[in-house]
């Protein structure tokens, strides 16, 4: 499945400044692996162990994947994946 992955400003150092990159996969996890293949290092900024990093928000078609199936969220052709760092603090 081919999808567009939108990259936030703070991670564009991995994408040569690109705001969006192409990804492929049947799950979010596979899409992230496919993006990692072309942009090494980015996976580490998104994923920790078997889960998304706590302060990274990922949306598939505007749904926060925490309310879907996390990294196992199924992906269909033409879906849009958006990555946004959470705005948080103490």
């Amino acid at each position, binding site marked *: 499945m081919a999808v567009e992955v939108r990259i936030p400003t703070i991670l564009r150092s991995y994408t040569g400044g690109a705001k969006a990159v192409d990804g492929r996969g049947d799950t979010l996890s596979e899409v992230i692996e496919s993006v990692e293949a072309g942009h090494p290092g980015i996976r580490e900024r998104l994923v920790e162990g078997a889960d998304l990093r706590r302060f990274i928000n990922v949306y598939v078609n505007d749904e926060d994947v*925490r309310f879907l199936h996390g990294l196992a969220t199924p992906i269909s052709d033409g879906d849009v994946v958006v990555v946004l760092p*959470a705005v*948080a603090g103490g």
Partner: protein
Amino acid sequence: MLTIAEEVRDQIVAHARRDHPDEACGIVAGPAGTDRPERFVAMTNAERSPTFFRFDSTEQLAVWRELDDRDEVPVVIYHSHTATAAYPSRTDVGLAAEPDAHYVLVSTAECGNDEGPTEFRSFRIVDGVVTEEEVEVIPHGS
């Protein structure tokens, strides 16, 4: 330096007072490239906590999309401290992800929900380094 209109400053302080003792948070958007905080957007603190804040993720996506559509950026990202000084905590520094933003901190430790003294300070947070900056408030009507 952060230059901000008095009425925008007052909106931030009013939000902080209203949500005390929980932390309040939000942004002030402005046209990209201008560094002018113009459009006040209060955000929901999904944590509803006196010691922590996190923008509600669904609301954040909607607001960030609106910024893109309007060619705006979050010029100011603000939140309140309700028991401590208006200075970025270690958590604030660790999670700061917008190097171009002015991070505004308001302390309601003294005033609580009422009128009374508040601290209003602004910082840059880049690669874990905090730099306080001057705040210039443009008086209402000028």
